[in-house]
């Protein structure tokens, strides 16, 4: 990619998009992903953690015995998260989080770091998450743990059909229909049956960024293009290692790579 300033690029192709699509996006994000749910449910009572890129805060209500501070770049999404009256939420950049180091029992960052547009920024975002975690003592696995999810390049079975050899840096259109969010149309019904929040509804097939255009479609409404870096097998674990962490567990679930990581 020929990008002069990665941050400006993300403002244009990530932040501005989420700010515009926030209510529609949120209306399609309500079902927790199973691995995230079990990660949160297994935390000890009174555990304190972060949700970096919390979006509409859909994970806030999974476990009322832990405390989560969610943050997101999109103030429109944070407003929706805050209105849940559960946990707490604030507006912050994942690369400049306003949290002290070494204090957190856990962190989650679900479908977020694939929006950073350079390898250095993706690694920096993981380093920032790891820094917030409690470091392990001599007993190796007793420090804080973070669960990270990113979109996978390998998704031959999705309707996008991406796989080996396809470009990893893509634009994915979000089509915002003119219908109000939550209306009972066919697309919404489809969403409600799909556990993968990130994968349905307004998400359309991807294009490389050269092909992407933002514009209006007479029938569908407005199309927004979001930038994604699609992770290939092993890349998330490698980024975690580059950030000074270790992947304790990792795997693939429905078009996503995930890893539970800790400070090394």
């Amino acid at each position, binding site marked *: 990619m020929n990008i002069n300033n990665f941050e400006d690029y993300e403002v244009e192709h990530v932040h501005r998009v989420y700010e515009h699509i926030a209510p529609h996006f949120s209306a399609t994000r309500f079902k927790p992903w199973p691995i995230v749910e079990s990660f949160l449910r297994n935390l000890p*009572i009174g555990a304190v953690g972060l949700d970096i890129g919390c979006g509409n805060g859909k994970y806030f209500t999974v476990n009322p015995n832990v*405390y989560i501070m969610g943050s997101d770049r999109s103030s429109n999404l944070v407003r929706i998260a805050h209105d849940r*009256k559960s946990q707490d939420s*604030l507006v912050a*950049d994942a690369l*400049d989080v*306003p949290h002290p*180091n070494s204090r957190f029992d856990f962190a989650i960052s679900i479908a977020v770091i694939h929006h950073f547009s350079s390898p250095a920024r993706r690694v920096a975002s993981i380093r920032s998450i790891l820094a917030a975690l409690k470091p392990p003592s001599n007993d190796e696995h007793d420090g804080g743990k973070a669960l990270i999810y990113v979109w996978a390049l390998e998704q031959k079975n999705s309707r996008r059909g991406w796989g080996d050899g396809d470009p990893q840096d893509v634009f994915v259109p979000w089509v915002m229909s003119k219908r109000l969010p939550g209306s009972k149309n066919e697309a919404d019904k489809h969403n409600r049956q799909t556990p993968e929040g990130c994968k349905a509804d307004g998400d359309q097939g991807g294009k490389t960024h050269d092909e992407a255009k933002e514009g209006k479609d007479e029938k569908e409404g407005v199309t927004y293009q979001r930038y994604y870096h699609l992770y290939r097998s092993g890349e998330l674990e490698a980024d975690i290692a580059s950030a000074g962490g270790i992947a304790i567990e990792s795997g693939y679930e429905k078009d996503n790579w995930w890893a539970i990581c800790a400070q090394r």
Partner: protein
Amino acid sequence: MKILTSNYITCAVKACKSSTLSFPLHFQDAELVQEEVDFNAEFIVGILPRIEWDALIVTAAELGFTNLPAQKPEPTEEAPLGEQVLKDLHKLLLETQVTEGKLVCGNCQHIYNIHQGIANFLLPNHLV
């Protein structure tokens, strides 16, 4: 923003994190509301050891709560915390919220605004 959150907030400027002056951030012109939250005694017992007590005392005093004990309560199996102590902590940490105001870094003096209960920590370009 809940008082408990302020115990986990510092300046977003990277250079400030190594300074003891950046924690806790300092409230100014804070407007408070009380909002009822389900009381969960076990949660308060679980969270208490994690709290930076000295920082909580500073924050609470800035918001007008000056009745916290100087030392963090240390419950034992023989002498667990009484329900009233837990309820008082619950009220302060979870039910007391700052709806409007400012948070100021004691190191770089940068001001973060809180509006409608949400603090904004996005930095201007020159501080990133």
